């Protein structure tokens, strides 16, 4: 994290007065950084940056190029595309986490940032939820159903699981949305890419 502890937002925008408008809206709530070109954006982005607002159309490196460089470097950040062109499904395929139509309103921009900051909380919330469910499964594996019914620990655990599920689901956001759904799944994959590798694909039979 940074010294101020406020979430870090990187604005990538080639028009200085547009960038300044965003900056005025965001300062106070966030630690704001700016970059005027794709190259400058790549120099400025690291794991400390929570959210990138990325202009799609820039001279030189395009927003899509910057995004794919961010993804291939495995930087832990969430990226919203800012564009005057109406969104199409390619936004999902390109790997953006959110989409902002240009020119954005102040509220629209802040809402997008908040959605992406929730997404940043997703990993921890889901991890905690998983740990609790795994602990419950361990109890279920060890004890009979009758014993579980009498167990205070089991009852408390179930309450914690329900509460944690709610918390995790809030970080997920609107899973009916294609963009948010893919973004939530991508968040999982980014964490496991190193771990997964090629070790699977053995001969477990699930063919029927």
């Amino acid at each position, binding site marked *: 994290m940074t010294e101020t502890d406020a979430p870090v937002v990187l604005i990538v925008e080639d028009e200085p007065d547009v960038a300044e408008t965003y900056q005025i809206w965001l300062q106070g709530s966030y630690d704001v950084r700016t970059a005027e070109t794709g190259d400058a954006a790549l120099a400025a982005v690291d794991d400390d940056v929570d959210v990138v607002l990325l202009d799609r159309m820039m001279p030189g490196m395009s927003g899509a190029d910057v995004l794919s460089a961010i993804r291939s470097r495995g930087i832990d950040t969430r990226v919203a595309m800012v564009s005057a062109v109406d969104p199409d499904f390619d936004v*999902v395929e390109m790997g953006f986490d959110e989409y902002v139509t240009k020119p954005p309103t102040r509220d629209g921009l802040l809402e997008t940032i908040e959605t992406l900051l929730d997404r940043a909380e997703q990993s921890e919330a889901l991890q905690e939820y998983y740990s609790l469910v795994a602990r419950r*499964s361990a109890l279920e594996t060890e004890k009979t159903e009758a014993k579980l019914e009498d167990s205070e620990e089991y009852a408390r655990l179930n309450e914690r699981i329900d509460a944690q599920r709610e918390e995790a689901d809030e970080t997920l956001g609107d*899973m*009916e949305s294609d963009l948010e759904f893919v973004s939530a*799944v991508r968040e999982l994959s980014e964490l496991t890419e190193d771990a*997964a590798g090629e070790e699977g694909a053995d001969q477990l039979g*699930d063919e029927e």
Partner: protein
Amino acid sequence: MSSTYDVSGVLPGDELDELPPGTTVLISGPSLVGKRQIAIEMLAAGNGDGDGMLLVTTKTSAASILRDFERIQPEFDRNRVGLIDSSGTDDRDGIREVATEYVGSPGDLTGISIGTAKLTKRFADRGVANVRHGLVSISTLLQYLDVETVFKFLHIYTNRVESSGGFAVFTLDDDSHDQQTVNTLTGEFDGVVQLRETEEGAVEYRVRGFGRSPSRWTPLE
């Protein structure tokens, strides 16, 4: 808005009939016991009702699944099926007329999610409100990814099915994984259809969850 999902007739008993929007089902049981067949029948049951069907395959080719669908439903409407094939097989017989997305590996969850999102959008664009989702099988995902990741993916996927008022059926080999893994994953679904094989080789099933009292082991005819 979506309406209920009728799966009556798939199981010999009347344990499962009209399921409310958002319902997620796990079919679990040992290998080669017929889980995939039940999953496919639950999906195909909606074809006559105008439901869309969206199936992710991990080991079986989309083309082979399509043949299964057509065996079950001779009047099968190909316009309402979408397949996401991550099996890596080359079998593409007759698949050209069907919306299919290919994903490089069952471990590529982002690819799978993009494929399903594309095909859901296609259904939405055509005004198909009810979508039946399937994934066969979770066991293949567990060969590529750790149980934590698979659990989280299933949580996200079932959440999507709930928020969109869909229906989903997944399969899991319960003899390929330890009991704790099976319990952990089973909890993510509204209910489970468990299958087992008797010593005489007959297949039995029982239904648990769905807010109903659990059923007894019954022969699957």
